[in-house]
C-alpha cells in the first residue's frame, strides 16, 4: 500500500521536474508557472468547486475504462459512448418535460442507455462474429462522431443557428448549480461509490476481476465468462454515456458540435495511470482536472502555452506506468539482497 502511494507520488514529481526542465529551456519560470497552475484551479473554495465539476467527465470516462480493463474487455469506445449518451439525453430533454425530481434521473438514465447501446453493439459483434472489441469500439467511435454530427446538423438542428447545435433542453433537466459547485459532482461520487462496491464487494465484481486476470481459470471455476463480458461492456458503456449526459445537462444544456472532444480519451489515460483501480481513478481524474483547469489560468497569466500541460499529463502516464514495473523489480531485488545478508550473518 505504502509502495503504491510512493510510486504514484514519485511519478508525478518526476513528471513535474521534467516539465520544469522544459520550461527553463524555453525561458519560463517554472515555479511561478506551477504556482499559477494550482492557484487557478485550487486557490479558493469556489475555484475548487469549479475544478471538481470539470473533473466529472474525466473521472466517469476514466471509471468506464478502468472497470473494462480490470475485467478483461478492452473497451476503447468511451468517446463514442460519451457522444451517444449525450445525444440521447439531449433528445429526451428536447421532447419531454417533467418536474426536475423526475426529469433529471430520467435524462441520466437515458444517457446511460445511450452509452450502453453503443457499447452493446461492440459486445454483440464479439458475441456473434467474434470481432475484437479492441477494434470495434474504436471504429464505433468514428461512427458515433459523424452520426451525432449529422443528428445535430439535420433532425435536431436549432433553427437559424449558425453552428451545428441543438436547441436548449427543457430547463427542468438542467443539473442545478450551487455557486460554482455543480450537482453533477454528486452524481459522479455516487457512481464511483456504486462501482467501488460492485468491484470489491459483489460476486459479480469478484468474477469480473478474476476473469480480467485469468479468464481460463474463471471459466474452469464455473464462471459464465461470456455473460460477464456482455455485462461489463454494457456497464462501462453506461458510465461513459452518463459522463456525456452530465456534460450536456450541467454545461451548455444542449448538444453542440465538439462536445467533450477530449474528455473521453483522457479517460483511457486515467485508467492506465490508475492501474484500473476505482479509487485511484477518482484521484487521478481529479488531478488531471486540476491540471486542465489550471492550464487555462497558467496560459492567461504566464504565457506558458496550455499544450505544455498535455505534455505533462502524457509524461505522468508514462512515468507512473513504466515506474510501476520498474519499482516492482527493484523491490524484489532489494528483498533478495536482504535475504542474502540474513543468510551470511
Amino acid at each position, binding site marked *: 500500500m505504502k509502495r503504491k502511494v510512493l510510486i504514484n507520488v514519485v511519478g508525478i514529481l518526476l513528471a513535474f521536474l521534467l516539465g520544469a526542465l522544459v520550461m527553463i529551456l524555453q525561458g519560463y519560470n517554472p515555479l511561478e508557472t506551477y504556482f499559477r497552475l494550482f492557484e487557478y484551479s485550487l486557490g479558493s473554495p469556489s475555484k475548487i468547486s469549479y475544478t471538481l465539476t470539470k473533473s466529472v467527465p474525466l473521472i466517469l470516462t476514466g471509471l468506464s475504462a478502468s472497470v473494462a480493463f480490470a475485467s478483461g474487455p478492452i473497451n476503447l469506445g468511451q468517446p463514442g459512448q460519451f457522444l451517444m449518451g449525450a445525444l440521447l439525453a439531449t433528445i429526451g430533454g428536447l421532447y419531454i418535460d417533467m418536474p426536475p425530481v423526475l426529469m433529471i434521473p430520467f435524462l441520466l438514465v437515458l444517457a446511460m442507455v445511450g452509452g450502453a447501446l453503443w457499447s452493446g453493439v461492440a459486445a454483440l459483434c464479439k458475441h456473434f462474429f467474434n470481432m475484437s472489441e479492441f477494434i470495434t469500439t474504436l471504429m464505433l467511435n468514428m461512427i458515433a462522431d459523424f452520426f451525432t454530427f449529422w443528428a445535430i446538423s439535420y433532425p435536431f438542428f436549432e433553427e437559424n443557428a449558425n453552428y451545428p447545435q441543438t436547441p436548449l433542453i427543457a430547463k427542468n433537466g438542467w443539473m442545478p448549480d450551487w455557486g460554482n459547485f455543480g450537482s453533477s459532482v454528486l452524481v459522479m461520487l455516487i457512481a464511483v461509490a456504486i462501482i467501488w462496491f460492485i468491484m470489491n464487494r459483489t*460476486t459479480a465484481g469478484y468474477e469480473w476481476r478474476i476473469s480480467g486476470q485469468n479468464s481460463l*481459470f474463471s471459466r474452469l471455476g464455473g464462471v*459464465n465468462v461470456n455473460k460477464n463480458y456482455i455485462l461489463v461492456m454494457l456497464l462501462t458503456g453506461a458510465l461513459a454515456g452518463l459522463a456525456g449526459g452530465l456534460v450536456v445537462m450541467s454545461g451548455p444544456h444542449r448538444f453542440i458540435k465538439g462536445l467533450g472532444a477530449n474528455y473521453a480519451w483522457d479517460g483511457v489515460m486515467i485508467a492506465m495511470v490508475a492501474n484500473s483501480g476505482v479509487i485511484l481513478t477518482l484521484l487521478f481524474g481529479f488531478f488531471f482536472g486540476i491540471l486542465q483547469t489550471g492550464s487555462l489560468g497558467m496560459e492567461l497569466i504566464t504565457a506558458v502555452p496550455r499544450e505544455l500541460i498535455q505534455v505533462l499529463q502524457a509524461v505522468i502516464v508514462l512515468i507512473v506506468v513504466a515506474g510501476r514495473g520498474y519499482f516492482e523489480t527493484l523491490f524484489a531485488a532489494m528483498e533478495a539482497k536482504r535475504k542474502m545478508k540474513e543468510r551470511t550473518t
Partner: protein
Amino acid sequence: MDDIIEMKQIVKIFPPSLVALDDVSVTFRKGEIHAIVGENGAGKSTLMKILYGMQPADSGEIIYNNKRVNFADPGEAILAGIGMVHQEIMLVPQYTVWENVVLGTEPVSILDHLDSRKARQLVQEKIDEFHFNLDPDAKVEDISIAARQKVEILKLLFRNVSILIMDEPTSVLTPQEIPQLFSELKRLRDNGHTIMFISHHLDEVLELSDRITVLRKGRKIGTINSGEATKAILAQMMVGREVIFESIRKQQSAGEVIFEISGLNYTDSEKRQKLKDVHLQVQAGEIVGIAGVEGNGQLELVNVIMGLIKPQSGTITAQGREISKDSILQKRKRIAFVSQDRANMGACVPATISENAIMTHHRLNGSFTRWAGRVLDNRQIANFTSVIRQKFDVQMSSGEAVFKSLSGGNQQKVILGRELLLDAPFILLDQPTRGLDVGSIEYVHQQIMEMREKNRGMLLISADLEELFRLADRLVVMHRGKVVAELITDQTNITEVGYLMLEGMAYEA
C-alpha cells in the same frame, strides 16, 4: 584428466525467498560426460544457466582454464567455448539446416553479401567431421525433432565450442531416438569435448555419463563416478531417503460406478484424431490412473471432461447423469479438478490467496454470499481461507497476500484444498504433483489417499509411473489417443506398463 571448469560456492536466490542454489561447488574435467541429476526444482538448470551467462549468480565464482570468468551473456560464453542446448529447440523452421547453423556467423563476401556456397560447404564439413547424419539443404520444419536437436548441437560445434551443456535433451525424443543421441555425445567426448548433461532419468544418466553430480533442493549432495553408482544409490541421493516404490494403498473395495466415459472421439481443428473411442469407468473409492507418454491424448481428455473442447461423439456420465452438455458450473457440482497448469488453469496468480480459495465455492456454496448470492461475505471467506490453511498446512502470511507470493508447494496445497473441499464425488487429478518438491509430493499423495478412504472416485493422470503405481488401483494405458490396456496395478509391473506406453501393445517374448 585435467579440471577445466570449477564452479565454487555458487549461491542463487530468486526473489522473494527461493534459494535455488545454496553454496554449490562442482568441478568438471576435460573430456568427460558429467551428468547433473536431481528432481524438478533441484537447481540443475539454474546452475548451468549461471555457467552459461544466462543468469548472474548472487555469489560464488567460476574458474575456467585457470582464469576467473563471469560471462555477462551467452554470447560471451560461446566465444569462450561453452555452449548450451536448451530443452526447447530454437531454430528458424523455414530455413534450411545450413542456414540455421551459420545464422549469426555467416561467411560473407564483398558488400556483406552472404557467401552461400562457402557457408554450405563449411556446414557440410562440420557434418562430416562429426559424422552427423544430416542433410544441409533440408528445411528444419521438415526434419524430425531428433534431427533438429542435432542441428542445435552442430550450431555450437560450428562456433568451435568445446564444452556442451545439454538441458534434458532426451525429454523431446522418442525412445528409439535416444541411443543415437547418446552415441553421438560419446563420440564428441572421445574427440575431447566436455559434455554436461542435465537429466532426471537415472537409467540414461548411468548409461551415458562418466561422473554424476546430484543436487537436491539447491544443495550439492555429491559427485560420484558412474561406475560406482547404482539406480538405488542415485535415487536415495536425489530424494534424501530410500524411495519406496511400492504402493501405499490400503485394502478397500470399490463402490458403484460414479464416472464413466464411453465412445469418446475427438478430432482437432487440424484434423488430427486425438481421442479414439475412449471408454473408461471410475468407481467410488478407487483411483484409476492414466499412464502414457505426454501428448498421447491426456490433455484432450481433460479438456473434454471439463468442457473446454467439444468431442465429436461420446458420452460422459457422472453419478448417472449425462454431463457433456452441461455448463461448466453444472459439471463442477460433480467434478473437482486439480490441473497440472497451476498458473493458467489452477489459479489466478496475481489475485489474493482468498480470492483463489473461493473460486467455484462462491457459486456452489451459499454460505459465502449474502443477498441471494450477489454480495460476498468477507468474514466467511476469511474463515474458509484459514480452514484451508490449517487443514492443508499452507505456509502463508495472510489470505490477503497475493497468490504469487506462495511457493509452488503451498500454491498447490491451496488449490488442492479448494478442490477437495468442494465435496464433489469425482476428482480429476491432472499431474497433481508436477513441479513440486519431495515433501509436497508426499503430502499431496496423503491427501489423495484420504479422499480414497472417503469413498471419492478419482481419475489420476500422471507422467510419473512410480506415482501411478503408488496410488492407483487400476491403470489405463493411453497410446496415440487410444486406451490400449486396462490393468490392475497389483497384477502388473513398471516394465510392462512402460512398454505399453511406448509401443501401444503388449510385449511379446
